[in-house]
């Protein structure tokens, strides 16, 4: 029974693809034919129940006609509605055929009136909804809520296996540790001095040598690097003070070079003697 009406409904315009030039879609701000029809119906200032669909159709067709004089292009849906209304109008004016052919003109008119009433009703409802006190506009929540602090209670877990392996490993380590002597991790000043003195006793130490390169030989493992270098440097300074050694560094953090101090005329004591054991 509503087939025709529905076919009109499903014939709604589709959305424009992007970039496609739009037809004239703005018919004095009306959002679609139904919107325009509703506005026209309101102008009749009567209840939508009692509205004359015939008069409404006339007004719509007239409006569209005038709009087309100004703008040749008019959105298709307005024209579809105009055609449909013209058809409805003719059906309403003609006597009913003896054999009903689809919905009667009366039924079609009622269906249209119902649609208009429904749109009107939802608009009214929307208005009332908007007039309700709105959050952040009329009524407000607590502006400065207080945070609820979370206290976490740790619940520890451990298994018997963890416990026993930890104990066994620990005790065995203890036994092993007592077997091995702890490795001395500090290079004493005396050790450093002794090794430097050994070095300057060698004939090639007459030439400049790089202290860092020499010391690396004594660094058994990387962790000892600091102590070997610190002690050796201190010992080297001591030897310089005693006049046995010369140090040379180009700039801060540059490699330090050393050599046996060459024999010097003013020097009272012969250097090589000092190095002798």
């Amino acid at each position, binding site marked *: 029974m509503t087939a025709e009406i529905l076919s009109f409904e499903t014939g709604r315009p589709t959305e424009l693809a992007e970039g496609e030039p739009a037809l004239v879609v703005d018919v004095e701000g009306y959002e679609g034919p139904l919107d325009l029809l509703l506005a026209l119906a309101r102008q009749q200032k009567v209840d939508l129940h009692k509205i004359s669909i015939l008069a409404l159709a006339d007004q719509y067709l007239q409006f569209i006609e005038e709009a087309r004089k100004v703008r040749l292009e008019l959105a298709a849906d307005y024209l579809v509605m105009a055609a449909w209304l013209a058809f409805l109008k003719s059906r309403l004016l003609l006597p009913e055929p003896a054999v009903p052919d689809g919905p009667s003109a009366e039924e079609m008119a009622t269906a249209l009136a119902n649609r208009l009433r*429904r749109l009107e009703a939802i608009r009214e409802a929307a208005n009332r909804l908007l007039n*309700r006190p709105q959050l952040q506009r009329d009524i407000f929540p607590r502006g400065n809520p207080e945070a609820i602090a979370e206290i976490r209670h740790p619940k520890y877990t451990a298994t018997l296996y963890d416990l026993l392996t930890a104990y066994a490993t620990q005790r065995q380590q203890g036994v092993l540790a007592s077997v091995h002597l702890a490795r001395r991790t500090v290079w004493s000043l005396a050790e450093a001095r002794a090794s430097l003195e050994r070095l300057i006793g060698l004939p090639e130490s007459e030439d400049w040598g790089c202290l860092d390169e020499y010391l690396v030989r004594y660094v058994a493992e990387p962790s000892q690097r600091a102590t070997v270098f610190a002690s050796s440097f201190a010992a080297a300074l001591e030897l310089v003070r005693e006049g046995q050694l010369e140090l040379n560094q180009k700039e801060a953090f540059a490699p330090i070079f050393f050599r046996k101090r060459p024999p010097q005329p003013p020097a009272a004591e012969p250097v090589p003697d000092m190095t002798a054991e």
Partner: protein
Amino acid sequence: MASLAEKREAIAEEPVADPQARPEELRLLEALLFASSEPLDTATLAKRMPEGVDVKAALAQLQADYAPRGVNLVRIANKWTFRTAGDLAWLMTRESTETRRLSRAAIEVLAIIAYHQPVTRAEIEEIRGVVTSKGTLDVLLETGWIRPRGRRKTPGRPLTFGTTEAFLSQFSLEALGDLPGLEELKGTGMLDTRLPTGFTVPTPSDDPTLREDEDPLEPGDLELTLAPAPEPESGSGEGGDAA
């Protein structure tokens, strides 16, 4: 400078004068509700109350207590929260941050979703007689007031839309049944989107339980409805509805 702690003490002394005046559970309830930024449901509140407290009765008492005040206890979607009294809106407007101005199209679509939910886009368009632009739905989804809730079991399996708790909260509705004019619309058959009156009286429902004619959302549906990122709501967007 007087410390806060000192002030607290000064205040704390006063209740001693009349301890009967304020049952402890009311103090606890108001403290919890005042502090929270979100509405709290009865179960959550009950969990924080001492044993044996009738939370519902206490809430009713508290609601009555605060009724004449500038701050009222209100219920939204079965959750309780304090809100400033509605009649003080004129005073509070300056507090208001820029309220989102929805286009007329968006407001209409929102109303249709609210009153006809669960509703598909095609059904919305049937009522309005206009194609709904993607932008309009995107703007509404962005407000958090509507959500896609399922897919209608019809060819094409279109998404069905419904309102959220945030919608109730926004419009100070305790439940969907409080929608203005709902009874009237129901009575006149205006909620029936299908023209021949069906055998069921359509009633909007935001019950997340799917209707018989709804399928659950599929993975990815939520991303789909929200993508592509909504463009800023500009005037030109609304014109597109008539296109």
